[in-house]
């Protein structure tokens, strides 16, 4: 395994050779390599196919801006598509495959699209797939989807773990190049808590890629020394492999740390951590990104950015070619020629678009002044370039430099608007920075080494001084201001072949001209029309040349043309990292009822109700399906006695001398008149007069009430009551506390419930109907001194009680109640039987209190008091809401009792067509009543209270069903309520 392009030097560890596979071919590299540098070392120039035309592409950059070298990394469920080879750290055993081709990478059958390109220009989809209309869903879209996209998902569950974390600091330094290191040192030496984050796995930024000296030593040595000093200080956290991807409000930053991506195996550790960093101040030292020049066939493998070529030579000890030409419009491109020459890589020529003397003297290098590259040859790898004067130079690598763009992205995440600086031909940060952020170094347009070092330090010192730290005294680091002149030269007009701007989306100079011709001239329109600047790289190398070309066509200046808005994230953030641990069972927190353990031991099946897991039924004996269990439970509760955990209902303790008056405000009916030891049903409205919630409230003493709410609204009702207490009636003497989790509460329902409870309550408690009639409440003791609250209320419609004990006794209480009930044939029942019984009794729940219905609709209009101030009573009287012919809640039963009612069916009068104009209402809840032996339902129907006995049709176009139903009272069982008072 030779590495034909490996040369000497670099920051790789040659003592640690690694092997890896690319497209099943074994290759070799060293620790410190990226996948891209290792591929280049092995002479693998062709690494992928382009998005639209399936053009052969190679490594174009050496950083996170890479548009071309996207691969599938790893295998099986661990496969990660669209991984930038320039960011993937090499490890032993790494497996990568190229993507977006049918057949082999070398012989992609989809490459035919390249020859069809005259028909596939920008806007092609919009123009071509217009008709026939029916073809879109059946033909066009499936075909486009099959050929679209780059990488492919494994379609297996992600086996890796992800985590989230929070960090705090005085100063966050984003980027660890010369400006970032200088800023971090200045702040850390003054004692400020510093976080230094860099997306690379080695800190130092361009210092690791350049041959510039500072402080009398090599740049990377100075960086290593600075990092060692920072690492020795306890108040500094150096985070490599960490991309700060977003600037949010008030100094909060989002960062993605790739913890184990560089290892063969995560070994149980989180693969990536999504950090939320709270900073008092931040220095953005994100450096700059080189941009290309557009010319004919400038996308061939072997055409690379000049700074990247330098990186591969200096940092990785890899020569991307044996015969290299440099094409530049600026002084910096010359550094590539200089560095490569120094390493013995042959420079065929430097082609400078400017007609001027060389900024760096290179005696052995041919300088072609005022010339350009117009075309290249070599389908799967560069073979030669053609210049404007027609001469052909045989080269296998072309280093292109069109100047450098400051990485202003994070400055735009709030309201920043980059400003054009003509001296460096680039946009620099402008407008309003995110609160607490300053910018230093190349990101701020300070393009030389000496300037970056000085600005990093100055910016950091200003920020920490503001925070009360005193900057430490230190001599400035010696460094040079290297030449930086850049010309405004974006594309080669003499080129007749396609000149690529956005290589990831296959957008050419011609597409930009077409976009202009068709009227999409604003940069945001240009982006959407051509897809320029979209996808994983977000046009980091493409945007500026494209908008410069657009400005040239429109005759506007570049600042007039402006940039598209940069939004988070700076580079892609995996969904797995955003999800963190919130996956599967842990997607959200879940709550267990106090009797959960007992229920598990007794055959319960559980259902999610909000965050709660509630028993929905208990399987006994040889019961086959859920209906067997539910029918038995609902029947036994009506005939004997049943026990149900109702802890999940919201409970709010209300205390204070104005407690009663306060309840009068929040409930539609009156509670201040409720006698001590009594319970009352209460209805809450929203301020707009719509029903909000219901429940019972008990008065335990003069100034102490206990409210229950529905399970779903427990949190919302409490929040709203705090709003009423603090914001609407701030001087009332009333205090609230949620006790939902404090008390375990059980419904004991059925004719034998009194007999059962007599065995549980302590001797002094008199449960006779005279002493403790319907709607009574008391604080009692059970089981020999355990405190309890007893309510004689009934959701089932039977003689029933609810008994509450401190939550820690909940599981025992469930056991005690069931043991005590055994002699009476007691059964535990779940939410399904609870629901069957409530439908049998015509109680409204969420299906009926759906946020659209009024008290008038559910037949409780008279409960809404107009004699007192309360939330919702004024607007509840709007004429439209109290119409006589409004929908009313009623019961329904099938005329043919063997038929099964369907929720959501709409009511249509007999003889009328089943269309919306004839709609009479709809079915909200249905159940099979084991006590009546047929299906029953609740629903809303116009003027229902006057239509008892009428037959209407229940139509469900969704199910394709229709049946005749009779309108009846919603109280199917014991309409007079004799049982619950017995």
């Amino acid at each position, binding site marked *: 395994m030779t590495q034909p392009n490996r040369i000497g030097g670099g920051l790789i560890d040659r003592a640690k050779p690694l092997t890896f596979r690319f497209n099943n071919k074994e290759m070799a590299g060293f620790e410190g390599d990226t996948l891209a540098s290792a591929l280049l070392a092995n002479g693998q120039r062709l690494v992928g196919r382009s998005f639209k035309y399936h053009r052969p592409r190679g490594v174009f950059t050496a950083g996170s801006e890479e548009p071309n070298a996207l691969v599938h990394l790893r295998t099986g469920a661990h496969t990660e598509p669209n991984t930038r080879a320039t960011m993937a750290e090499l490890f032993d055993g790494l497996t990568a495959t190229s993507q977006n081709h049918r057949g082999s990478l070398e012989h992609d059958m989809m490459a035919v699209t390249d020859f069809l390109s005259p028909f596939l220009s920008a806007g092609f989809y919009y123009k071509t797939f217009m008709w026939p209309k029916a073809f879109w869903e059946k033909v066009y879209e499936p075909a486009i989807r099959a050929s679209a996209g780059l990488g492919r998902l494994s379609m297996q569950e992600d086996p890796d773990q992800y985590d989230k974390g929070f960090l705090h600091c005085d100063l966050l330094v984003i980027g660890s190049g010369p400006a970032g290191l200088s800023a971090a040192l200045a702040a850390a030496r003054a004692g400020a808590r510093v976080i230094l984050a860099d997306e690379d796995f080695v800190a130092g930024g361009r210092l690791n890629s350049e041959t510039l000296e500072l402080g009398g030593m090599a740049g990377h040595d100075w960086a290593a020394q600075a990092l060692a000093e920072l690492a020795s200080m306890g108040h500094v956290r150096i985070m490599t492999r960490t991309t700060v991807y977003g600037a949010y409000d008030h100094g909060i930053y989002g960062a993605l740390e790739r913890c184990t991506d560089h290892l063969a195996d995560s070994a149980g550790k989180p693969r990536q951590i999504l950090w939320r960093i709270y900073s008092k101040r931040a220095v953005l030292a994100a450096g700059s990104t080189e941009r290309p020049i557009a010319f004919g066939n400038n996308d061939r493998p072997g055409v690379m950015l000049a700074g990247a070529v330098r990186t591969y030579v200096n940092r990785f000890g890899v020569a991307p070619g044996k015969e290299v030409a440099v094409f530049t419009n600026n002084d910096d491109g010359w550094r590539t020629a200089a560095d490569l020459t120094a390493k013995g890589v042959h420079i065929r020529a430097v082609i400078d678009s400017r007609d001027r003397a060389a900024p760096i003297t290179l005696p052995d290098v041919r300088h072609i002044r005022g010339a350009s590259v117009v075309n290249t040859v070599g389908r799967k790898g560069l073979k030669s370039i053609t210049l404007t004067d027609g001469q052909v130079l045989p080269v296998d690598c072309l280093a292109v430099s069109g100047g450098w763009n400051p990485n202003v992205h994070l400055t735009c995440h709030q309201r920043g608007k980059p400003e054009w600086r003509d001296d460096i031909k680039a946009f620099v940060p402008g407008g309003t920075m995110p609160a607490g952020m300053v910018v230093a170094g190349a990101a701020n347009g300070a393009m030389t080494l000496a300037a970056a070092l000085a600005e990093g330090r100055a910016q950091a010192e200003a920020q920490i001084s503001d925070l009360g730290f005193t900057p430490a005294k230190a001599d400035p680091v010696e460094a040079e201001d290297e030449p930086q002149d850049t010309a405004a030269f974006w594309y080669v007009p003499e080129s007749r072949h396609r000149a690529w701007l956005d290589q990831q989306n296959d957008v050419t100079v011609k597409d930009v001209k077409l976009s202009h011709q068709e009227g999409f001239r604003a940069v945001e329109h240009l982006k959407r029309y051509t897809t320029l600047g979209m996808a994983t790289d977000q046009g980091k190398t493409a945007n500026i040349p494209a908008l410069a070309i657009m400005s040239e066509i429109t005759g506007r200046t570049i600042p007039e043309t402006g940039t598209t808005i940069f939004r988070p994230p700076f580079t892609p953030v995996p969904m797995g990292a955003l999800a963190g641990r919130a996956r599967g069972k842990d997607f959200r927190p879940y709550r267990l009822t106090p009797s959960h353990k007992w229920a598990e031991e007794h055959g319960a099946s559980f259902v999610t109700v909000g965050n709660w897991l509630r028993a929905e039924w208990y399987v006994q004996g040889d019961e086959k399906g859920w209906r067997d269990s539910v029918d038995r439970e609902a029947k036994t509760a009506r005939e004997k006695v049943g026990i149900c955990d109702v802890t999940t209902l919201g409970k709010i303790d209300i205390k204070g001398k104005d407690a009663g008056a306060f309840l009068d405000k929040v409930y539609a009916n009156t509670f201040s008149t409720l006698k001590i030891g009594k319970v009352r049903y209460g209805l809450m409205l929203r301020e707009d007069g719509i029903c909000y919630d219901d429940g019972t409230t008990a008065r335990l003493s003069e100034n102490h009430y206990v409210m229950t709410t529905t399970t779903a609204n427990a949190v919302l009702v409490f929040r709203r009551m705090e709003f009423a207490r603090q914001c609407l009636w701030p001087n009332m003497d009333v205090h609230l506390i949620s006790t939902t989790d404090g008390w375990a509460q059980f419904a004991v329902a059925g004719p034998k419930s009194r007999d059962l409870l007599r065995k549980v309550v302590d001797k002094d408690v008199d449960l006779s109907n005279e002493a403790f009639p319907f709607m009574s409440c008391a604080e009692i003791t059970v089981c020999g001194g355990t405190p309890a609250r007893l309510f004689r209320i009934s959701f089932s419609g039977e003689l029933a009680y609810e008994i509450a004990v401190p939550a820690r006794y909940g599981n025992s209480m469930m056991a005690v109640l069931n043991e005590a009930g055994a002699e009476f044939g007691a059964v535990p029942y779940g939410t399904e039987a609870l629901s069957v019984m409530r439908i049998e009794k015509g109680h409204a729940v969420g299906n009926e209190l759906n946020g659209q219905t009024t008290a008038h609709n559910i037949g409780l209009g008279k409960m809404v008091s107009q004699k007192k101030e309360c939330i919702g009573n004024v607007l509840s*009287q709007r004429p439209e809401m109290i119409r006589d012919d409004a929908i009313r809640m009623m019961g329904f039963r099938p005329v043919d009792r063997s038929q099964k009612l369907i929720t959501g069916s709409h009511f249509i009068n007999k003889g009328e067509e089943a269309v919306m104009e004839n709609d009479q209402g709809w079915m909200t809840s249905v159940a099979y009543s084991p006590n009546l032996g047929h299906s029953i339902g609740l629903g809303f129907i116009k003027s229902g209270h006057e239509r008892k006995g009428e037959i209407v049709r229940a139509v469900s176009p969704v199910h394709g069903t229709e049946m005749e139903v009779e309108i009846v009272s919603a109280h199917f069982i014991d309409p007079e309520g004799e049982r619950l008072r017995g």
Partner: protein
Amino acid sequence: MIIPHPLLGPRDAAEFVYLGDASLIDRPDWQAEGAMEQFHDYGYLRDNPAGQHQELWYHEQGDRSWLVVTRDTLTHEITQVELARDVARARGRDK
């Protein structure tokens, strides 16, 4: 966002629940002439300023205080945070 709670200091916005315009404190008198129109406006009409906005936040994962936060809707800069109860009292809701 970070909300400087008047009692608890700077707290992450994730601890809070947002309600809306602090004009919700100014609930009309139910017995006033034209109460229904006033309640309609109270319930349905809001200003939507680009700039300074007084709004109600509830510290649900904290001390359950309702706060009136003065926030610039363009920059998210928070310039004042008061206990809603104090604001309500100052606005005359002292019955």
